[in-house]
C-alpha cells in the first residue's frame, strides 16, 4: 500500500467537496478498494471515507419502492429489505459475513465488477441510481465492465428499486471467489418481465431481452425452452469458457423463474 491521506466527512456535501481534489477517491466498505491498494494497483493521494455519512445509510420501503442508501451494507440489506425478498436474499449471498458487514451497495454499483451480484438486481429491477447530482435509470447507468455513467467525484447516495410481483436471483458461484460465475436476476412486473445477467458478458451486466419477451407472455420456465444466448462476447477464463457461461445463462434463467414461483 502506498501512503495516502484520509478524510472522514459526515455529509454528502462535504464528501463531494473533498472529492474535488485531484487523485482523491471515495472509500466505502473497502472490500474492493483496500485489496487493490494493498497490491499497490492504485495510488490515490487521498481517500474520502463515506462511512461516517448517516444520510446514506438504511433501507426504507414506501409505496412499492424500496430505497437503499448508498452506504448501506450488504448485511443491512439482507436483514432490512423484507419488502423485496429477492433483493434481501441476493445481498445475503454476497461474499462472507465479514464482506457483508463492510461492503456497501454504493461501492458495488460504483465498481460495476462484471461478476458482482448487485448490478443484476439494479438492472433486473429497472432501479434508479440516485447520486448527489442526479437520478440515473439502470438502463443508462451500466456501461460495460467496471464502467458506469458516474462522473468523476460523483457519489451514489441511494438506489431506488420498484418492487416486482415476483423475483428471484440465482447465482452460480465461481468456485474460488464465490462471486457470480454467472448470476441471473428475474423480476416480473405488471408491465413485463426483466432478466438481467451478471458474470457472463465481457460487456458486464446485460438484459437478456429474448427471455424477457418470452416470459412476459408466459412466466414459466417452459417458456424459455429452446432459447439460448450466444457464446460470442462471453467471458472465457480458467473457471469457464464463453460457451459454458452462455449455457449457464439459459439454465439459471429457468431456475430463477422457477424460484420466483
Amino acid at each position: 500500500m502506498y501512503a495516502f491521506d484520509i478524510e472522514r466527512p459526515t455529509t454528502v456535501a462535504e464528501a463531494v467537496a473533498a472529492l474535488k481534489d485531484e487523485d482523491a477517491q471515495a472509500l466505502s466498505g473497502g472490500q474492493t478498494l483496500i485489496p487493490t491498494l494493498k497490491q499497490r494497483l492504485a495510488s490515490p493521494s487521498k481517500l474520502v471515507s463515506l462511512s461516517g455519512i448517516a444520510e446514506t445509510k438504511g433501507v426504507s420501503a414506501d409505496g412499492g419502492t424500496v430505497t437503499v442508501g448508498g452506504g448501506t451494507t450488504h448485511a443491512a440489506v439482507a436483514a432490512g429489505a423484507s419488502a423485496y425478498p429477492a433483493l434481501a436474499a441476493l445481498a445475503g449471498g454476497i461474499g462472507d459475513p465479514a464482506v457483508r458487514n463492510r461492503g456497501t451497495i454504493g461501492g458495488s454499483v460504483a465498481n460495476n465488477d462484471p461478476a458482482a451480484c448487485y448490478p443484476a438486481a439494479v438492472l433486473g429491477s429497472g432501479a434508479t441510481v440516485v447520486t448527489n447530482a442526479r437520478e440515473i435509470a439502470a438502463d443508462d447507468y451500466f456501461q460495460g465492465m467496471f464502467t458506469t455513467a458516474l462522473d468523476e467525484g460523483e457519489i451514489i447516495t441511494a438506489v431506488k428499486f420498484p418492487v416486482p410481483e415476483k423475483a428471484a436471483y440465482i447465482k452460480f458461484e465461481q468456485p474460488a471467489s464465490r462471486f457470480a460465475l454467472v448470476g441471473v436476476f428475474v423480476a416480473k412486473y405488471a408491465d413485463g418481465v426483466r432478466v438481467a445477467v451478471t458474470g457472463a458478458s465481457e460487456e458486464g451486466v446485460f438484459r437478456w431481452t429474448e427471455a424477457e419477451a418470452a416470459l412476459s407472455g408466459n412466466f414459466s420456465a417452459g417458456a424459455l425452452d429452446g432459447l439460448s444466448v450466444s457464446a460470442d462476447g462471453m467471458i472465457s477464463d480458467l473457471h469457464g469458457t464463453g460457451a459454458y457461461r452462455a449455457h449457464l445463462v439459459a439454465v439459471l434463467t429457468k431456475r430463477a423463474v422457477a424460484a420466483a414461483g
Partner: protein
Amino acid sequence: MEKFGKAQPVKRVEDVRFLTGQGRYVDDIVPEGALFAYMFRSPVAHATITGLNVDDARSADGVHLVLTAQDLLDGGMDITLDSTAAPNRDGTHGAKPERPVLAHGKVRFVGEPIAMIFAETMDQAKDAAELIEFDYDELPAHLGLATGGQLVHDEVAENLAYDYGIGDEDATQKAFDEAAHVVSLDVGDNRIIVNSMEPRACFAEWDGSRMHLCMGGQGVWGIKTNVARMLGLDPENVRVTQPDVGGGFGMKSFPYPEYFVCCFAARALGKPVRWTADRTESMLTDNGGRDLTSLAELAFDADHRITAYRIKTISNLGAYNSGFGQMIQSFLFARVMPGVYDIQTAWLNVLGVYTNTTQVDAYRGAGRPEAIYVLERMMDRSARELGVDPLELRRKNFIPVAKFPYQTVTGENYDVGDFNRVLDRAMELGDTAGYAGRKATSEAAGKLRGMGVCYYIESILGDPDERVQVDFEEDGGVAIYVGTQSNGQGHETVFTQFLADQTGIPADKIRFVQGDSDLIAKGGGTGGSRSVTTQTNVTLKAVSDIVTAYTGYLADKFGVDEDKISFDDDTFRIEGSNEAPSMLDVAAMARDDQREDLLSFKAVDEIPGRSYPNGAHIAEVEIDPETGKVTLDKYTVVDDFGNMINPMLAEGQVHGGVAQGAGQALSEHVVYDEDGQLLTATFMDYAMPRANDLPFVAFDTEPVPSTRNPMGMKGCGEAGTVGSMASVANAVQDALWDRGIRQVDMPFTPHRVWQMLTAAE
C-alpha cells in the same frame, strides 16, 4: 499391548492457545528492531538476465541492505541449495543443476528470488524494490509435462532430470504377453498449491559469533546443517528454532532461499532481520504438490487375478530440484505401488522433467497418495472392463491374512493386515446396501449419482530413530524434549499425555519442548506420518530407563533387593514398606540426596520396523448434469491404524486429510498461462475446499496392531489424503459412466465436468 495401556480421546491442550490468537508463530516473536526483508522476484518464467542494477534501491529511504547473488558470492557464501538425486535406471544419479538462493545468469520461474531488500519498514522495502532495474531477454517457457522442448538448464538434455526404474521389466512384459485380460488407463494427477495457513516465515539474528535462525518448518536439524554449510559457520555456532508452526504438509520440510539470505544479511548488518511471505508470494514460491501423469496397465489371468502391473510416469519437478523433489514420484511412489494386492510382477518407470514452474516436492503423503491414486483408479476401471463388482475384484486380489508378513515386489515388508475385515466394516458403516435407494432418489431429482471406493495402504517413512530427554526440574515439574516438530497436529497433547500415562506424572506438570537445536541435539522432525510412533517408542525407553534407575536408587535407600520394588505406571511399591512414592516423589528424594544423575534422562531408540496403516474410503457424489457441479454427498472411512493413543486426534487427522484429498479432486486447480504466469495466485482464483464443501465423515477403525513397534501403532497423519483422492474420482467416474464418459481427471470443477458431459453427448 499392556505397555500401551490407555487410549484416550484427550482434547488438545494447545487449541485454546491457537484458537484465541495466542499461538506463537514466527511473525509473533520477532526480535525488536528487526529489519523487514522483501524479496524482489522474477516477473517472467524464463529469461537470460542482462542487467541488474540495485543502486537506487540501496540509497532509498530506510534501506539498510540490498543483496544480489553477486553480493553473496563476494561475501563468501555457498549459494547453492542442496537436494537428493534419484537413482537412474542405468546406475547413475539424476541431474543436479545449480539452484542458487538468488538467481544469477538466468531466471527459470515466475517468483524466483533475485534480490532481497532489508529496510526499516515493509513499505520502504517495497518502495525500494520498485527502483530495481532488472533487464532480461525473455526465452520461451517450457511448461508441458513432457521431455524435450526449450531447455530449462542448458546442461540437462531433454529437460530429463532422472529416469527411475524398479521391478522386472522383462518379466512384466512376459506376463502381459500371456495375460487373459489387459486393462490400461491414463491417470493424471493435478498440481496443487499447499496453502499452509501460516505462510513461510523466518527471522535471523547474529550476536557476533552465533547465528540464530527462527523459521516455520518441520524439524530444525537439516536447516541447521545447511546454514552452517552455506554461511561457512561451525555447526556449534548455529542455532535453529521453530516455534508454533501453522501447517507444513511436507512443503515446509525443505530449505528455501529466503532463510539463508536472511542469515547472511543478519551477519552482514549485525542486526536482526525478518521475513514473512504474503499469500501470493507463498502461492508463487512454496513447493507445489503432485503434478504427474501415468499410463498404467494391469494384466489379469482368466480368473481375474492380477498377474502383472506396469506404470510409466512423467513427473514435474518444476524449475530446480527441491530438497527431495526427485525422490517423491520415484522411490516413495514405489513404496506402495502394488498397494494391498498380491502382485509379484511389476515394472515402474518414472521420468522427472524440469519445467519453468515453481519446484514440486512432498505434499501430504509424498508419492504414496499418487501411487494409490493410480492403482485404485485402475482397480475400478478393471472391474468395469472385466464386468465384475469393484469390491469383489479387490477382495479377490487382496493379500490374504495368511500371507503376512508379506514381502512386496517393490521391497516393503508388510507386517500385518486384514483388508477384508476393514472393507466389511466400511461397507456396513457406509451403508453400501442402501446405495441403490440413494441413487434412485438422486435420479428422481435429475441428478447423477456415483459411488467410489479406495482401499489404500501407506508405508510410514521418515527417520526410524528418535530421541527424547526427560528432565525433573527444580519446581517439581518435568520437561520433555522431543525430536519431532508439531505443525499443528497436537504433539504437545499427545506426547505429554503419553508420558503422563506411563509415569503417573500429572500432564499439567509436564512442560513440552520442541524445535530448538541448542536444547535438542538431534531429531527426526515431522514427516512421513512418523512422529507419534517414533516419539512414543523412545519415550517408552526413557521411562523404562527411569524406572530401572529409580528402582536401584530406592533399593539402596530402603535397603531392600531391587526385585522387591515395582512400578505400576503410577507409584513405586516397596515390599515390606508403607512408602508408595510417585515418580515425582522419587525425583524429589534424589534431588535432596544430590543425585543429579537421576534428574535428567536421555534416550535414543529406533523403531524395529515400519508400520503400514491401511483402510477403505467410500465416497458418494451427486452431479448436476446441467451445470457440472459435483457435490460430495456422503463419505465413510474405516482405517486400520493399529492401536491408537488418542483416537480423537487420529480422527481429526483423517478429517483434514480427506479435506485435502477431496480439495484436490474437486476444486484445487493450478493454472499457468502459456508464458508461465501463474493465473491462480490468489484465493480469488485458487479454490480451497471449505467446510460446507464436505459432508460429515463417518469414521471407524478396525485395528490390527503392528508388530513392528512396542505399542502396535501405525502412523495416521497422511492416510486421509491417500485414500480420498481415488474414492472421490472413482465416484465421479461412476456417476458419469452411463453418459459414456471414459476419461475423467481431477480436478472435477463444474466447468471441466460440464465439458466432459458435453463432449460425450
